[in-house]
């Protein structure tokens, strides 16, 4: 007889926009790759920046885009801000990244345990699937699940500066957030990002 996976019983206290704002506070020259949907919105709401590369498709690809970027720019910190659904769609990439061990890469999974963009259906994390556990088992240097502000503060050193790869799952409310106007022209985003990062070399 199959057993049901255990459901987490800890209260969810964090709000997604406040979490991402905190993570990006005094961001310096961090490069950010976002997953689709709310993650892109949260990142823009924290302050649009030339060093943000917003994804509006290729669900499951955010972490691997960040890996390619991190390997190309080893002296820069690269941060992924994505959701649980998007991370699950590319869950194998945690093994790929765990093997490569990029020291300059962190992944933050804003986990509302739902597919918000399509009507709020449950994701696997709502049934107990543990993304941080998968990351640790894949060879990440550090991985944790965060439920409250104290745990978020304790994780900031790893997220921003830790010898990676690091992953943090942050459990947040499912409440809707106000839409942020955000250009979704990928060519525009690409040019802006590369010009800021590479200067004139972007056009060679």
């Amino acid at each position, binding site marked *: 007889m199959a057993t049901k996976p255990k459901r987490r019983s800890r209260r969810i206290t964090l709000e997604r926009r406040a979490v991402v704002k905190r993570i990006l506070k005094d961001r310096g020259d961090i490069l950010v790759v976002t997953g689709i949907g709310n993650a892109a919105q949260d990142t823009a709401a924290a302050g649009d920046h030339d060093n943000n590369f917003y994804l509006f*498709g*290729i669900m499951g*690809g*955010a972490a691997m885009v960040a890996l*390619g970027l991190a390997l*190309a720019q080893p002296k820069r910190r690269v941060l992924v801000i994505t959701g649980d659904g998007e991370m699950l769609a590319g869950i*194998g990439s945690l093994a*790929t990244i765990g093997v490569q061990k990029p020291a300059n890469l962190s992944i933050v999974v804003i986990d509302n345990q739902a597919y918000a963009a399509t009507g709020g259906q449950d994701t696997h994390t709502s049934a107990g699937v543990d993304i941080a556990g998968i990351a640790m088992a894949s060879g990440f240097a550090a991985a944790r699940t965060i439920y409250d502000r104290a745990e978020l503060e304790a994780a900031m050193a790893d997220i921003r500066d830790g010898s990676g790869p690091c992953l943090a799952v942050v459990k947040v409310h499912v409440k809707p957030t106000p839409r942020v106007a955000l250009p979704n022209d990928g060519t525009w985003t690409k040019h802006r990002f590369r010009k800021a*990062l590479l200067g004139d070399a972007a056009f060679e």
Partner: protein
Amino acid sequence: MAKKPIVARRHQPWADDVHKVFRDMDVRQMAYVPDGGLARVVDLCLADRKMRSVLLTTEEEGVAQMAGAWLGGQRGVFLTQSGGVGNCINMLSIIQECRIPLLALVSMRGQWGERFPWQVPMGQAVPAALQSAGVIVQQVDEMDRVGETVAAAAHLAYHSFRAVAVVISQRLTGTGGRG
């Protein structure tokens, strides 16, 4: 990871021409799922200290990695067997949406003398599948033209911000019934 011996040159002599193109064009990242048809190319890349070769769990990861590499200012090459092409279709959206170059090498199964039936469906679908996803397909089935085809594809991809796949015939890779 344990070192394995490099596949002998006589089995895939065109592989050295291909690696030379990577060197000449400053290709710095490679992404792959292991494949018999590209085994010597993979081995030469793994032995090349100027290149970072990333082992994927599934091929679509490589398309995303190549996009990230280029955002970071590095050229990459994506190696896949025909079976892996089907896994990549949605991920190829970023190439069209962002006009980011992609150079891919595809080694064919299910095409020439194939003895393993499960390779045939995706093998036969490769050119149409790639084209439907906006990839320029350049097929090669002559030993001494592989290097120049890869070079031409690389120029086309990197300088016109398109996806270009060099599809290497099963006639050249010697993989009729294994792996």
